[in-house]
């Protein structure tokens, strides 16, 4: 009986939640360009919100918001969003939706007190807008609107694309046709040319330019929006406002499924191609090169989408993301089907590893993406008359793709492994009693970050040729097995080819003496395993890096360095291998304190840094 009752209560609670979510979802566009789902309950289940609210940094942020709201700006009470009547305990959505001629962005929220929000809206000079058959009370201020009703609100902004600029707008041109155009005879007159006499140049007095300066008023005809009629503008705004507050039936199933995957406090999905096209249009790129830039952005990212889920767990903040691209881009190949060269391991020094980035991408798949992207860009532009794909095979006469794929094998590692010290003698001056300089030679220690980069080269002969060309051009010196870069970069940089690996490093000892053996203390098994199993991997020891930066004289302050060492452990970002046309990645920021919630730890960190650890009530 107890079990049945519990089950019934659970189902009722879930369905209620779903129904609340559905109410908001009914006002989301079916296929938005971008959608963000914010789930406060997920965070509230993990952290005590009152502890966060007591931090000075949170108060400062809230005070900033409070100052913008007339109804509460003068109040002595502590401010939170609930004061606006917004229910901060329940789900909310933010979306961006491309409409013909512009974009609509909106925040859709549940309310605890609609009357409170309405009161605040009126104090912000929003005017009531009458819309027939609407379940909402709508208030508008130019291109912004707030609609309140049914225990929810839609706070939106309507962004219309600017009209193409017409410099001749508003001007009447009449060309007179001349019927009787006759050639006139020109009489040539012979004149005596007098000797030029140099006039005395008048003296110009220096004068204050500002006195004579006329302020140039820009004529209206140069105003970019001059030819846009206010009436057309308002028509677009009204139409899209009404559309935004009508029930739509909610998100499409595919979008719902994408958002449902997210376990974190915020889950987002964006249509890359549509978003880039809209952004470029809003930025006025449609006016560049006859709209080619807008086409370029739209076509470059066509068919690609991105998903992101933000989680604040105990001891770590996690961002899971996924990028999807159409299989046709890679022509069926898997971009992440590649491996890092196992011989790289001995060239990654294990002790004091500050950071390492590794990448292994299928070069042919990557090449196909580049090719297909450029072809679709060209195809999409009317200027090329759809000849992009016809021209592409001709490029094969000049570019040997297979040779490129054989040359670069698609894998690379860059490792920062500590600080490289070297001594140099410098001349300084000391001064005697009469400040007479006494020259003195001294030895100073210089420090630079030590790094080694490596990639697999499939064609050693041609790589050697490239290095030899560098030598002939004077940018490199050859010393048998290795080369030294002669560019003025402030430190010694070496390059060498060992078996099939191109190495670039400022560790002279490695390149000059240990090329075949590598480091005795190579990177540990655990980290190497992550590198081996990933298509892309990043490891960053943040506190060690800050420590090193402060050794270099960056003004970070001992306190900041100590704080970072006590709180943050490391940052990692991993993309597994063999994922097909979806590249899923996980980014983690790990904290020393593995037991407290990561959002609390992040806020505490910044609170300690900027507010000396103050809070308004004790935690």
């Amino acid at each position, binding site marked *: 009986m107890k079990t049945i009752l519990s089950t019934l209560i659970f189902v009722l609670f879930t369905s209620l939640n779903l129904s609340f979510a559905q109410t908001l979802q009914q006002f989301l566009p079916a296929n938005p360009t971008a959608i963000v789902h914010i789930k406060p309950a997920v965070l509230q289940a993990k952290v005590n919100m009152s502890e966060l609210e007591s931090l000075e940094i949170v108060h400062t942020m809230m005070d900033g918001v409070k100052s913008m709201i007339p109804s509460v700006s003068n109040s002595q009470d502590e401010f939170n969003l609930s004061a606006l009547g917004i229910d901060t305990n329940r789900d909310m959505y933010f979306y961006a939706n491309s409409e013909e001629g512009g974009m609509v962005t909106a925040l859709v929220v549940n309310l605890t007190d609609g009357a409170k929000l309405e009161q605040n809206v009126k104090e912000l000079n929003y005017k009531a807008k009458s819309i027939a058959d609407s379940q909402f009370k709508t208030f508008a201020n130019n291109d912004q609107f707030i609609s309140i009703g049914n225990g929810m609100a839609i706070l939106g902004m309507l962004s219309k694309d600017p009209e193409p600029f017409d410099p001749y707008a508003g001007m009447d041109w009449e060309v007179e046709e001349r019927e009787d155009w006759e050639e006139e005879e020109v009489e040539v007159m012979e004149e005596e040319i007098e000797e030029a006499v140099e006039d005395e140049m008048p003296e110009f007095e220096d004068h204050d330019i500002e006195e004579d300066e006329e302020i140039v008023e820009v004529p209206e005809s140069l105003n970019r929006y001059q030819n846009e009629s206010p009436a057309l503008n308002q028509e677009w705004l009204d139409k899209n406002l009404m559309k935004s507050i009508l029930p739509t039936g909610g998100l499409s199933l595919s979008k719902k499924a994408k958002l449902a995957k997210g376990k974190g406090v915020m889950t987002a999905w964006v249509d890359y191609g549509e978003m880039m096209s809209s952004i470029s249009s809003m930025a006025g790129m449609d006016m560049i090169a006859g709209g080619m830039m807008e086409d370029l952005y739209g076509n470059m990212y066509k068919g690609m989408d991105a998903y992101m889920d933000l989680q604040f767990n105990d001891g770590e903040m996690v961002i899971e993301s996924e990028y999807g691209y159409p299989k046709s881009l890679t022509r069926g190949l898997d971009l992440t089907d590649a491996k890092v060269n196992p011989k790289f391991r001995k060239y990654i020094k294990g002790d004091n590893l500050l950071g390492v980035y590794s990448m292994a991408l299928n070069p042919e798949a990557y090449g196909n993406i580049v090719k297909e992207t450029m072809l679709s860009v060209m195809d999409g532009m009317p200027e090329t008359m759809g000849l992009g794909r016809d021209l592409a095979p001709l490029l094969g006469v000049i570019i040997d793709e297979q040779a490129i794929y054989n040359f670069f094998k698609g894998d690379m590692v860059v490792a920062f492994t500590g600080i490289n010290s070297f001594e140099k003698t410098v001349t300084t*001056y000391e001064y005697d*009693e*009469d400040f007479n*300089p006494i020259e003195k030679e001294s030895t100073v220690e210089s420090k630079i970050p030590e790094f080694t980069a490596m990639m697999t080269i499939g064609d050693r002969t041609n790589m050697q040729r490239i290095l030899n060309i560098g030598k002939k051009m*004077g940018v490199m010196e050859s010393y048998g097995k290795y080369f030294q870069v*002669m560019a003025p970069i402030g430190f010694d940089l070496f390059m060498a080819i060992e078996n099939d690996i191109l190495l670039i490093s400022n560790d002279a000892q490695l390149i000059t003496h240990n090329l075949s053996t590598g480091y005795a203390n190579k990177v540990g098994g655990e980290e190497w395993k992550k590198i081996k199993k990933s298509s892309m991997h990043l490891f960053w020891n943040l506190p060690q890096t800050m420590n090193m930066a402060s050794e270099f004289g960056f003004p970070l302050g001992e306190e900041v360095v100590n704080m970072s060492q006590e709180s943050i452990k490391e940052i990692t970002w991993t993309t597994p291998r063999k994922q097909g046309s979806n590249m899923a990645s996980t980014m983690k920021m790990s904290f020393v304190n593995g037991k407290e919630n990561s959002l609390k730890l992040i806020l505490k960190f910044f609170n300690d840094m900027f507010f000396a650890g103050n809070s308004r009530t004790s935690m």
Partner: protein
Amino acid sequence: MLMVIFCFFFSSCFEITEDITINADGSGNFNLILNASESKDNLANYMKVGEVDGKKIPGQSELNHNLVKLKFILQGISGLSNISIEKDFQNFIFKISGNFSELNRLNAGIIQVAEAFNTSEFPVPRDHNFKAVPGEVQRFFPYPIDQTFYDRTKSSVQYILDEARVTSIFRFSEKIKSFSNSKAKLSPSGKAVMLKATLAEISRAEKTLANKINY
């Protein structure tokens, strides 16, 4: 301004020292030392490559030629004599020294050298750097300072300005009675005054080389 231009070619420290000794009769000698030994590795590389950030870097022969030209100009100034130039291209230390019959003759030297090497379309300012009368020497610093330059410039240039140093030394045969620049130091013997500043301090107008010394 010259100092700021120098900055762009250095990624470590360098130091400029002006060292002026004034005798009882108003004559004296001067030493101008550019010590870039802390940047010697970079400078050697720059000169090999011949260019940095699109700016042409003169090679050793061109620098030698310019130093000869400099000496020639200074020798031609009446009141200046025994001009000598020492150059060390290993450690990048350069010294220009000479004698003057009176300190004011250095003004003519500075202006003429600036004009000889001026490749811009703008005329060289003719403001004086020094003024000497019996019992008093004034060191001017007549160059417009944009106090916002430091904050506006990139951090790599800020670093160079912070590290680059200028030292100005005035030495007399008699004891110094007073000097106007509060950041200057008096030697234990009381006959010399020294002022040290970084280019950053000068660019932010926190320090100046200007000084009025009574002796």
